[in-house]
């Protein structure tokens, strides 16, 4: 592989208290432009893994590297030092994230949600940011809802605004934490369509999802997690067509049935 990996996770562990192991030694490598879907039962560690990638969750062990840089720590002089607030913020600006519950800011219009990061983090003027924002709102097919407040948008529209908000920062990686799990079934398609478009444009994506159809169609690689570990990974055909482990077989029987 000529390119350095975009994401490199080694030995990642997250323990709550004494005994609860949300992540139990996860290794994962994601190449630039690759779309990786994380599947697995609830509580298998998909969300914790995603949230560790931008340090919203602080791992208790292991190393996460995004675009060659260690996330949350600086390795200068061989000594790992926890990053300060500003350095961490700068790092997170390069990593887009879309949440299950959208988390749009309710006091701002859709367009203002999209451009807040450009104004506050990148230092753009409101007008310049708005120009970028208009374009992104068109891209997610919401040009007619730019002045609407989140309260007045459907779940699918909210999630599309959230995707535009993450894209606005022009991130190197996009993380999706079960982006359609909170949506009414008829609204899932519009969000997946936008994600598919983002994938087609070459974005590196890690998607925790229960949408097996999406994983099969869009993912370059599917990673099956259970009990805080990667149990099996491979191409969609391998994972869905010829699953090897019993746990994956049982899981697929349950979700496909």
């Amino acid at each position: 592989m000529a390119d350095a990996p975009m994401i490199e996770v080694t030995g990642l562990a997250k323990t709550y208290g004494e005994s609860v192991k949300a992540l139990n030694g996860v290794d994962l490598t994601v190449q630039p432009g690759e779309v990786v879907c994380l599947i697995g039962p609830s509580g298998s560690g998909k969300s914790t893994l995603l949230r560790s990638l931008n340090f919203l969750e602080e791992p208790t062990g292991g190393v996460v590297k995004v675009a060659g840089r260690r996330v949350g720590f600086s390795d200068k002089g061989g000594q790992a030092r926890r990053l300060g607030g500003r350095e961490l913020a700068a790092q997170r600006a390069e990593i887009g994230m879309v949440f299950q519950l959208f988390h749009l800011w309710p006091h701002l219009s859709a367009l203002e949600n999209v451009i807040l990061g450009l104004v506050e983090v990148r230092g753009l003027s409101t007008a310049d940011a708005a120009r970028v924002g208009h374009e992104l709102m068109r891209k997610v097919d919401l040009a007619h809802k730019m002045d609407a407040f989140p309260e007045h948008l459907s779940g699918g529209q909210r999630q599309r605004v959230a995707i535009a908000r993450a894209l606005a920062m022009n991130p190197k990686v996009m993380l999706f934490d079960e982006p359609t799990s909170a949506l009414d079934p008829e609204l899932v398609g519009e969000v997946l369509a936008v994600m598919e478009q983002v994938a087609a444009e070459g974005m590196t994506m890690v998607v925790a999802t229960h949408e097996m159809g999406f994983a099969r169609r869009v993912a370059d690689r599917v990673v099956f997690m259970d009990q805080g570990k990667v149990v099996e990974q491979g191409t969609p055909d391998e994972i869905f067509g010829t699953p090897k482990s019993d746990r994956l077989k049982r899981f697929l029987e349950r979700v496909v049935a």
Partner: protein
Amino acid sequence: MNIDFSMVIPYLPILFQAAGVTIVITLLSQGIGTVLGFFLALGRMSRFPVLRGIVWTYVLIFRGTPMLLHLFFVYYAAPAFGVTLEPFPAAIVAMSLSTTAYNCEILRAGLQSVHPGQIEAAQAVGMSWPRILRRVVIPQALRVAIVPYMTNFISHTKGSSLASVITVPELMLTAQMIYSSTYRAIEILTAAGVIYLLLTSALTVLQLWLEKRLRYDERGLSRRRRRQLLLAAGGNG
């Protein structure tokens, strides 16, 4: 006993002047108490247990003891520690200490009402904590805090009458001095009561206006915001 409200008229200028003192000590102490209360609220939510403990103790003491006692303490007891204050600054200090404790808890309730996901979404786009606070947390916290905040503000306005006991020439003390020389308690106390009611009514109106302003999603975007966002006036962009 005949009641004659026209006797109040010559005293109105003095009463209004006294009301001015009431306004000044109330606004000044509430202003100080808001700024300090805000920082104490942040301290109460800090990840440092010692800081949280200090703020908790402060609130325990100053919310748990009468403001009248704070006034006496600052005015009469503080000189024993080498601090002697005139009535006016003593009142400001005591009233600020008292209302700070309430504002700390009110603002904390507002700040903590903001869903953690709101903050995570801002962290995820790379915003620093001060910016998250200013652009994401505070605007939403205000909406929750405004009613209890204004309730305390109104309560504090009436509580400023306690400053009369350390001879601050505010509305209550002035009314007392007038009726003790004219024996017209009913007329003068009624006049003072009406003035207090006017002051608190102004705050009630302010509260209504603020509540309306903070109903962001019902109000829609202002013309100014539309212009800044390059959106067509009145339309859907």
